[in-house]
């Protein structure tokens, strides 16, 4: 059974419409990861020993276990403790939680490169702590970690394919359904790979543009 380009072209419309699911979930996940990751970074920066020890345990769990297992835990284990989530919600929560940790880790790295003198200058001017975070620290931090965030966004997009195993009908699951009825896995898998590749190339490209724009504002 050889490769047929016209078959690939014929299934692309279905794959592209399924990609809307991946894109929608990826956007929600990234927004959640950014908000939660920022919150986590601020909590960690307060250096409360007991809190940071708990966070360290959670982080080592997230970093040390496969994302697929984390997704399974969200979908199959959480109902046992009374949290019965739909496949999409469970999947989004699992990946967002995972991504939050990576966002927070890279923010923590970036935080060390922000000159403490700026924070002192802000304090001396009378800026309250929340204003120092919002106006001084975070704007610089986000600009500095744009490359890392772009990388994380591509990982999140790829991660959404894993949600096919908990019955989210995404690009991968759609292509599996097509393959199982047509017995043509070659074209369908190539097709779904192409869809992800195009999305991630677009993300990398826009990331590079954003980086260039922010470069001017960097010290």
């Amino acid at each position, binding site marked *: 059974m050889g490769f047929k380009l016209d078959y690939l072209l014929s299934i692309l419309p279905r794959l592209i419409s399924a990609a809307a699911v991946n894109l929608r979930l990826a956007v929600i996940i990234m927004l959640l990861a950014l908000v939660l990751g920022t919150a986590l970074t601020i909590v960690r920066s307060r250096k409360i020993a007991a809190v940071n020890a708990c966070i360290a345990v959670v982080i080592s769990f997230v970093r040390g276990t496969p994302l697929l297992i984390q997704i399974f835990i969200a979908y199959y284990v959480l109902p046992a403790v009374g949290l019965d989530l739909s496949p999409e919600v469970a999947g989004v929560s699992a990946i967002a939680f995972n991504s939050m940790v990576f966002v927070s880790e890279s923010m923590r790295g970036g935080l060390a490169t922000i*000159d403490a*003198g*700026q924070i*002192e*200058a*802000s*304090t*001396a*001017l*009378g*800026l*309250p*702590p929340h*204003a120092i975070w919002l*106006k*001084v620290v975070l*704007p*610089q931090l986000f*600009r500095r970690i744009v490359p890392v965030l772009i990388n994380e966004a591509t990982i999140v997009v790829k991660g959404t394919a894993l949600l096919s195993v908990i019955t989210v009908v995404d690009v991968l699951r759609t292509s599996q359904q097509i393959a199982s009825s047509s017995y043509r896995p070659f074209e369908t898998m190539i097709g779904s790979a192409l869809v992800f590749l195009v999305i991630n190339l677009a993300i990398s490209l826009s990331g590079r543009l954003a980086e260039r724009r922010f470069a*001017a*504002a*960097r*010290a």
Partner: protein
Amino acid sequence: MSAVPVLRVSNLTKRFHGVTTLDQVYLDVHAGQIVALIGPSGCGKSTLLRCLTWLEQPDDGFIEVAGKPLGRELMPGGVVRRHSRRQIDALRPQVGIVFQQFHLWPHMTALENVVRPQTVVLGRSRDEATRRGAELLMRLGLADRMDRHPHALSGGQKQRVAIARALAMDPALMLFDEPTSALDPELVGEVLAVLRTLADIGMTMLVVTHEIGFAASLADRIAFMDRGRILEEGPARDILAAPKEPRLQSFLDLVRTDHRIVRTTANPTE
């Protein structure tokens, strides 16, 4: 002139890990005065400035800015009450500080550096803050640099933006931490000129410096600090011409010889 000093420091003491950096410091600065704080490095000059903005918490003693206690106050009955961060922040704009390294915000333009604290801290409208910021930057000779980010400014320009940023808060007192040390030696005259323009508008200033010549040509009064204490304080001319304290005497001798060395090595052909 009002009798209440713009800055009153009494019995200020600060220890770091058992080392006394500030040892019962007393200092009054009256409205319109320029006081230079001199002394050997490590004598506590910068620590004193940091305490005056509460970036460092003194272990003992009191600070009053225009009659209002900063950080902690003595209540009737001898009880010392500590202020909350909010109370301290409310008084902080009264004390402008210009750091040695300026510490401008690199992600904002020069104008935005001056505008932002006014809107955030004083609650001024954007229009009003922009007007005030532009006016200050213009007066400091930065009319054509307002839209630049700090990395595109020279050291002297950054310093003037930092000065404008502090002045925009309408402080009662301006503190300068070694204003000449981060700049090229030929800019010392420029810094002097800028500080003089501030003096002309009646700004009260406390300037930490180790350049005696700079202190002599700028200050009305000089305070000499050594090992965490202010040993001698008085009119600039008297202090430099007739120091009473032996340690000040030897410090001045040392600094003056140093200057001669610097001069001869700078111009070996002379």
